[in-house]
C-alpha cells in the first residue's frame, strides 16, 4: 500500500498522510501552549520538525500514522489525528489533536470516527485506545461520544515517561455497536 494514495473524506474533512506543505501549520500548532498542552507541551520549531518527520517516517515504516486533517471549506490544515502506535506505546491508539480555531465544531469526533473505521477495517485492529490526560476534559468528551470508556491508567514510554494518562478504548465489536449512533 502506498501511503501517498490514502485519502479519507468525511462530510467536512479530508484525512491524508503527512505532507511537506503541512510543516508550517504543524509548527504553529505545536508552539501553541493551549493546543499542545495535552500532547507533551509547547515545542520549539526544531523540536516540532523532528516530531513532524517522525510522523512521516511512521507512515513509511508502519504504513499508518496520524493523518493530516484538512478542512474542506478552507483547505487549511487543522490538526492531525488517527492511528498512532510508536514503539512501547500502551496499545493501538487513535489519537486526535486540532488547532484551537478548529475546536468546538465536532471535527475531532468526525475525523476520529473515520480513522477508527479505517483502523478496524483496513488495519485489522481488534481494539482501539486513546491516551488522555486525567484533566483533559474536552478529549474525554470526544472519547465518550465515540463510545469508548476508561480502561486503565498508565505511564507513557520515554520520552514522555513523566506523563500519566488514562487509557480509554473499546473493542472492534463494541465499535460496530456504537458506530451507527456516533455517525448520526
Amino acid at each position, binding site marked *: 500500500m502506498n501511503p501517498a494514495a490514502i485519502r479519507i473524506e468525511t462530510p467536512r474533512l479530508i484525512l491524508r498522510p*503527512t505532507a511537506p506543505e503541512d510543516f508550517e501549520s504543524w509548527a504553529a500548532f505545536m508552539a501553541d501552549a493551549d493546543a499542545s498542552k495535552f500532547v507533551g507541551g509547547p515545542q520549539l*520549531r526544531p523540536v516540532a520538525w523532528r516530531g513532524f518527520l517522525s510522523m512521516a517516517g511512521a507512515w513509511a*515504516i508502519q504504513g499508518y500514522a496520524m493523518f493530516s486533517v484538512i478542512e474542506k471549506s478552507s483547505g487549511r490544515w487543522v490538526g492531525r489525528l488517527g492511528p498512532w502506535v510508536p514503539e512501547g506505546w500502551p496499545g493501538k491508539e487513535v489519537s486526535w489533536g486540532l488547532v484551537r480555531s478548529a475546536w468546538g465544531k465536532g471535527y475531532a469526533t468526525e475525523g476520529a470516527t473515520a480513522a477508527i473505521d479505517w483502523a478496524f477495517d483496513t488495519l485489522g485492529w481488534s481494539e482501539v485506545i486513546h491516551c488522555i490526560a486525567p484533566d483533559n476534559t474536552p478529549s474525554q468528551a470526544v472519547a465518550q461520544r465515540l463510545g469508548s470508556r476508561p480502561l486503565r491508567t498508565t505511564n507513557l514510554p520515554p520520552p514522555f515517561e513523566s506523563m500519566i494518562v488514562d487509557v480509554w478504548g473499546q473493542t472492534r465489536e463494541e465499535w460496530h455497536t456504537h458506530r451507527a449512533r456516533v455517525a448520526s
Partner: protein
Amino acid sequence: MDLRTVRLQTERLLLRPPAMEDVDAWARLAADEETMRHLGGVQPRTVAWRNFAFAVGSWHLQGFYGFSVIEKASGNWIGRVGPLQPEGWPGTEVGWTLAREFWGRGYAFEAATAAIDWAFDHLRWNEVIHCIDDDNQVSMAVATKLGSRKLRTAQMPAPYEKMVVDVWGQSRDEWLARARERSSTTERNSTTKDTKDTKEKQVQG
C-alpha cells in the same frame, strides 16, 4: 525520487536509505554509552525508535538524511553516515556514527567520502560541515582526513540546545579540487593499491 534506487557503493560498504530491518541495530547503537557520549547521551529504545522514524521521514519528505551503512562482507548494519540538515541546524552536514565494533577500520572515512560526493553532486550543496564535540578526537581525525578544517563554533538547535560544537567543514570547490588530486594519485598508485589501503586504516568513529 524513488528511495529504493538510492544506493552508493564503496569498496567495502553499501550506503542506502534506512529500512525497517535496521531498527534493532539502530536501537543497540543508541543504547551504547561510549558511542552516544558525543551525541546527547544514550536513548531508551522507545526514543531511538522515534529518531529512527525521524530519519526515515527525513528521507521521504526532505529527500535525504544519513544513509544506513552496510558492511558488504557480512551484510551487517554498521551505522549511519550522510547528509543531514534538520530545522535550525548550523549548516549542511555530512555526519558519521558507527557502532563501536566497527571502529578503527577506516569505514567512517570511506562512507563519508561517498556521502560528501553525493551531497555535492545530487543535493548541489555548496559547503559541507561536520558538527563535532571539542573532545571527540576520533571524529576530528576523520574530518581532518576528509580535508575539512575547524570553521567556527555553534550552538545546536533544540532539543540539543545545551550542546556547543565545533563546526568543521569545507567548500564544494575545496572538495572537488581534492577529489581531482585523489583520482590522479590513485591512477599513479594503482599498482600499489593494497599498500595504500592498509595505510588508510586508522582509529575512527
